[in-house]
């Protein structure tokens, strides 16, 4: 089987075909790489939302005309910090965050270690996504809730978040895909997963077949996330009438 495929590839002019096919078909390699590709970004996404969701809410509720205005200086610092983190290219941010990874996890290499830079990069992005979603809500709806005697907390939990749920889901889909992309990039510096395989083997060692397979798998993963996200978004949105 392995030899047959290798011979076929060889006949198409592929170099080192046997080595590549052996690598790809070894059940320990690709499934594990897919797992690694998903697990670090997934955990990072969870942490990013733990930080970014409250921040995004604060960005909307705490502004001057928000439902609970916060000191202007606090908002200014928050906005600047988010912009700052978002303007650093991910690879550079990752290197900069190494000491933090070492501090928290005791290491700065390996898939688990990428969770820290991924979280640091994704949290401000998530905050902006959440902010954008919450801004879509009609001011009148919030006012109606206020007129009914809603507290700030109730407006956030019972009005803003539920009313913006479809948009938040769509934002989360975006975040997941972006973090997945960052994760693949992180593969180049000590991380694992499909990104690492594509870079190290595919690019580094000229194993083009491995490169393409890894990239195609990444594309498929992104497609799946996007499709699930869009379906979920449409399904939860009661503004869309389903026949």
């Amino acid at each position, binding site marked *: 089987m392995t030899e047959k495929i290798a011979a076929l590839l060889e006949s198409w002019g592929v170099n080192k075909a046997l080595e590549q096919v052996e690598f790809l078909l070894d059940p320990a390699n690709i499934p594990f790489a897919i797992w690694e590709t998903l697990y670090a970004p997934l955990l990072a996404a969870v942490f990013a939302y733990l930080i970014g969701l409250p921040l995004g809410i604060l960005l909307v509720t705490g502004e001057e005309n928000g439902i609970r205005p916060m000191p202007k200086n606090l908002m200014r610092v928050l906005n600047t910090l988010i912009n700052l983190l978002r303007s650093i290219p991910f690879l550079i941010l990752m290197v900069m965050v190494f000491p933090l990874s070492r501090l928290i996890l005791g290491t700065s290499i390996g898939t688990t270690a990428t969770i820290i830079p991924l979280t640091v990069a994704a949290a401000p992005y998530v905050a902006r996504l959440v902010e954008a979603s919450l801004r879509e809500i*009609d001011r*009148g*709806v919030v*006012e*109606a*809730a*206020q*007129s*009914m*005697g*809603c*507290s700030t907390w*109730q407006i956030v939990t*019972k*009005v803003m978040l*539920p*009313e913006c*749920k*479809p948009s938040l889901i769509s934002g989360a889909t975006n975040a997941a895909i972006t973090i997945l992309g960052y994760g693949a990039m992180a593969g180049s510096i000590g991380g694992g997963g499909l990104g690492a395989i594509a870079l190290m083997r595919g690019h580094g060692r000229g194993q083009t077949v491995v490169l393409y397979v890894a990239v195609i798998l990444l594309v498929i993963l992104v497609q799946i996330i996007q499709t699930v996200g869009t379906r979920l978004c449409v399904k*939860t*949105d*009661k*503004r*869309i*009438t389903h026949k």
Partner: protein
Amino acid sequence: MEPIIELKNLTKTFGAGGGQVSALRDVSLAVYPGEIFGIIGLSGAGKSTLVRCVNLLEHPNQGAVLFHGRDLTGLKEKELRMQRRKISMIFQSFNLLEQRNCLDNICFPMELAGIPRKEAKQRAMELLETVGLPDKAAAYPVQLSGGQKQRVAIARALASDPEVLLCDEATSALDPKTTDAILKLLQTINRERGITIIIITHQMSVIEQICNRVAILDAGQVAEIGAVEEVFRNPKSPAGRRLVSPSMALPLAEDMPLARIAFNGNASADPIIASLVMDLGMKVSIMGADTRNVDGKAFGTMLISLPEEAEKKKTILDYLNAFAGVTAEEV
């Protein structure tokens, strides 16, 4: 009778420096339990700002908002939230929660008040019945027409068992027929539940149809306040005249003596002027008229020119005032 809501010397200014807008200037008025009180004015007159001051969605810069004699402006946030439950509000754009179905929209205020879900649902069903949408419990707002949305909004407003219902242009987004139906519903609610209603509108017809008293707001000030028939038959302020008879607000020659004739439905307009000319042998011209004929009876006002001589003026006014349902005075 004690007013249920009393606004005292409300002042509200938006912005600062050059871009400052005085939305309310020293507005005072009282609304009594059980009445339907209208506030009318042109766009930008400050109506929304005024009604939003009643439940403190807008905080006035100065003045007091008394609810049962108690000033709301001084209340702590938590206490204010409790009071707000007794003052419901409906809006021009309905402001329903779009991700909740009708039943859950109506349950919302009860959820806030901590009423058990089962009890809330049952009450919400009753309220849907009240507003005439018993079969829309599971429908989402997007599936409803404007009129239906406003009905759900009214049901939601009633869910907290309020004493006052504020309506900010509640019918302005609706067609005339739907407006009519919503106004009738509000009237029924007022009558059957004894809820005091404050209606903000720029439409005369709304005030005419259901209000007991009306305040005319002009550039942030109360220009006039009184019983609806009184104000409409005989508006005293320039703003009132502009609203009641827009056609007569045209600038006329300053010194031309004029009389306003108000018809309140007990006479027909045309024969009166005709007989005036014939009986008295004096010529008058109609300068403007905003009368409506309902079953041959006239409602509205008419402006006629008067002769210069005081004696002739008096003759004409006396002649007109002798008709039932007609009031004439020099303006």
